[in-house]
Structure formats: C-alpha cells, structure tokens
C-alpha cells in the first residue's frame, strides 16, 4: 500500500468529499477567520449531521461557530476565535465553550503550529519559543525542557498534533490533485504536511500545464491529496483572494438567531445552489 494518493479519480462532489470524514475525526481547517476557509465543506458536514468532530485551526471563526451551532464540533484546538471584521466574538462558539458543549484546548497560534510541526517532522514534540508566564502552560500541562547542550535556556515543548484530515480551500487544482493557493497560505502548508490525509475544495480545475509552467507556486503536491471537489465561491461568505471578497451581508444574516436563519443560510450557499459538474 502506498503512503500517498496516486489514484487518478480524485474529483468528487462536495457531498462525497464530506462523506470521507467519519464521525469523531479530527479535522484541520485551512484559511483564517473569514478568509479562504473550506466553508463549503464545513456546511456539508452540517448537512450530513456529523458528530463529535474535533476542529484544529489557529484562527477559526465562522467555521467553528457554524459547527458549534449545529452541534457537529465537540472538541477544538485553537489559538484565537472570532468572526472578525467588526462582528466581534463568535457567538455560538462562545456559548458552546461556556456550556461545556465544546471541549477547548486553548493554544497560542504558534504552539498549535509547533504541535503540527512535530507531526510533520515525525517527532513526538516540538520546542516553541516564548510561552513563559502564560497560564496556557497550566491548563495544557505543557513541559519545559532544559537544553541538554547547556548553551540555551530551557524551552517549552508542545506534543505532536496529527489531524486525521486537513481540509484546504484552494484557488486551483489540476486533475491529479495538485494544489495552488494565491496570496498568503495562512497555516495551510503545515496542516497539509501534518495531517494523515488532505481534502481540497477548489475554485476550479486548471490544466496541469499551468502548474508545470510554475511548479514553485504549487502548495501541495497531488500525492498528499486524497480527493478534491470543485465549488466555485466555496469559501463564501468569506473571501478567496483574488476571486472574491467577504460577503458581509451574508455573515450578518448568518448571525441572525434561530434554526430558520441557519437553514436559510445553508440553502443560500453556493454549493447548495450549484449543480456540480461531476
């Protein structure tokens, strides 16, 4: 059995993509706040009524809020959670933590990255600078190790964090599943290396020749990618640079209370409106 994904039939529908994620899985989500998140996939997790999902993301917002609102997420490892863009706190996330519906492992963004690095580097833990004096140490039981070479100061080490899945929203894939992201890649690179498998939601498929002309731009090689779905506007109501910006009105409507508002939001999503070419 291969350690990679060499199959040629990676394109699936967004529903099939979500179906690959079982209840109880830990899922790292790409992007940051309202920017280039794999939100079409997140909504599909809600439609498929997934249970007991763990979210791993340095700066989730809309995604984790929605998953808490729908009762899909029950565990999370995060650095900072907010809707951002004047929307302030993520209300359903906040409530889920306050009621105990979501079990939080609170990180600094860089400590979560350190845990992902340990998984990506095949090591049990990863040293991380800073952290001194933070109470995060107490709630997480983090350990400090002396420099065995006696030169540097003692350093905090973070245990490895290996997500079952990393789900990334990309600008472009090719048919094999190579992945391109434009602008900042946020934390997507390290997520794609730390996770056992990578799932992609892409704006479009382009010819492999485009990738071959500038292979330096490719963020994730196809053999790390298990499957991808094509959902134009799939990062809605967030942005996907340079394709589209945040739909602030849609976020506002999402924040209206009640199950009808939630259903209306889900029904207004691009993947619900589109017929998938597949």
């Amino acid at each position: 059995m291969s350690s990679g994904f060499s199959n040629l039939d990676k394109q699936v529908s967004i529903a099939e993509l979500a179906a690959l994620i079982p209840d109880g899985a830990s899922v790292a989500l790409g992007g940051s706040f309202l920017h280039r998140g794999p939100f079409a996939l997140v909504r599909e997790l809600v439609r498929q009524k997934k249970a007991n999902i763990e979210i791993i993301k340095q700066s989730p917002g809309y995604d984790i809020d929605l998953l808490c609102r729908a009762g899909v997420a029950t565990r999370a490892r995060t650095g900072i959670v907010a809707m951002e863009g004047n929307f302030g706190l993520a209300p359903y996330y906040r409530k889920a933590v306050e009621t105990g519906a979501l079990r939080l492992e609170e990180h600094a963004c860089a400590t979560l990255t350190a845990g992902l690095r340990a998984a990506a580097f095949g090591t049990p833990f990863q040293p991380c600078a800073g952290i001194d004096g933070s109470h995060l140490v107490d709630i997480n039981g983090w350990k400090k190790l002396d420099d065995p070479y006696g030169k540097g100061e003692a350093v905090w080490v973070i245990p490895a964090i290996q997500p079952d899945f990393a789900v990334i929203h990309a600008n472009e894939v090719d048919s094999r599943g190579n992945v391109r992201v434009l602008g900042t890649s946020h934390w997507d690179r390290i997520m794609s290396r730390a996770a056992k498998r990578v799932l992609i939601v892409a704006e479009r498929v382009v010819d492999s020749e485009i990738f071959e002309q500038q292979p330096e731009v490719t963020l994730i090689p196809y053999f790390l990618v298990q499957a991808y779905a094509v959902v134009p506007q799939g990062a809605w109501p967030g942005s996907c640079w340079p394709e589209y910006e945040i739909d602030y009105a849609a976020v506002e409507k999402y924040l209206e209370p009640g199950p009808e508002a939630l259903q209306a939001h889900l029904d207004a999503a691009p993947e619900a409106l589109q017929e998938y070419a597949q």
Partner: protein
Amino acid sequence: MSADWTPFSYIVTNLARFIRPDEITFSGVNSTMPMLACLMAKKAYEWDFVYINVAGGVDPRPSKIPISSSDPVLAEHTASIFDNEDFYDLCCRGRMDLTFLGAAQIDGEGNANNSCIGNWHQPKVRLPGGGGGAVMLPTAKRACTWRTEHSTRTFVEQLDFRTSWGGFHGVVTPIAIFVKKNDRLALQSWHPESSLDEVKARTGFHFDHEGAEPTALPLPSEIKALAALDPDGAFERDAAVSLR
C-alpha cells in the same frame, strides 16, 4: 479637519507613534486599529519602516482599507508573501522589533488576558483567545496594545487568566498612554480632555506617573494621513470609541 483628538484618532495615532524608523513592525488579526496605525505611519512620517502583516503583505499598497485586518488586500502589491509560519519564526528568533497584540484585560506589569472572564474551566465569558500573544509578547522586542474601554475591569490588579506574559511596551486607551518603565506600566501622558485623576480612577492597578503630562496634539501630517485612510469616517463610526 480639527487639530484636536477624537477618541478614535487618539488611539490610532498614538499606536502609530510607537513605530520607529526602519524597524520590522507587524499587525495581525482582529487588529483594525494597529492596521490603521501602520498604514497611517507610512503616510504621516518622513521615514520608512518594514511593515509586515498577517495577510502575508510586506509594505503593501492596498487598493482600499479593509474592515478585516487580515484581509488579503493587505497583501496587494507586496513583493513577497511572508506567511504565518515565517513571521512567527521571525519573532521567535528575536527579530520582530514591534508587534501589536490585542488584550481584553491588562495588569500593572502589562500582561494580558485574552481567554476568559471568570474561571477558565467554567468561564462567565469565553473570550477569543490570545492568538499570537503567549509566544509573541515574550519574544518580540516590543509589543504594544490598545483598549477602547479604559476601566477597572479592563485594567486590573489581577488578571482572571494570564494568557500572555512578558509585559507590553506600550498601551493606548481613549484617555491615556502607558509605557513600560522598570517592568511596570507607567503613565506617559493623558488625553488633554482627561486628567491624571481620571486615569487613576479608571485604572485598577497602581502606576508610576512621574513626568506624565497631557498628550501632544496630533501633527498636521498625522491628521492628514488618518483622514486619507478614513475619508468618510466609517472606521471611526465602526470603532465607536468614546472618551467616557
């Protein structure tokens, strides 16, 4: 244009005044005012600095000023993408000269609580979390923050939870500017329409105020730069900061 401070211009401008020539300066997520301060400093002052931000931008020339301080327009016309791992590593290895970081509660040493009100395990209010703080505050050469609310529940003797330790170099509120002195926050100046007594009354910890005085009024170049960033006052309205 008024030559007086508004509560909004007071915070943004005095954040900008923490920026120094040539230094590597960072603004992150959920940080509209530091973003505005960095963009403003680029326009207001005759010297330049290295402005990096959470959107991966390095000295960007955004086509507009975004509501979200992590918006990808902050990487428009950047010549490189300096991504999240990169700017954190830069800070961790001691080469971030100045970073801006948010804080919900701040204690007299300049440490921050971004995590919760009440007990962490059963919080009254779950807050966003510290993001960069716990790693950046102790490793950046200087870190500065801002609070739109200056009260004894935001400036406290004892944090509900110490998300980040290391002590801010500078703190700006609608009525005051604190700067670190002997490992404690010391009052540097107060809003000309406020007073030392008001700052004392609205601050939950004791602080040194030797030499503190009313804050110098905004320079014409500062007023002009901020007006150019917020021509119709939308950011000022959204921020909804008041003196009291």
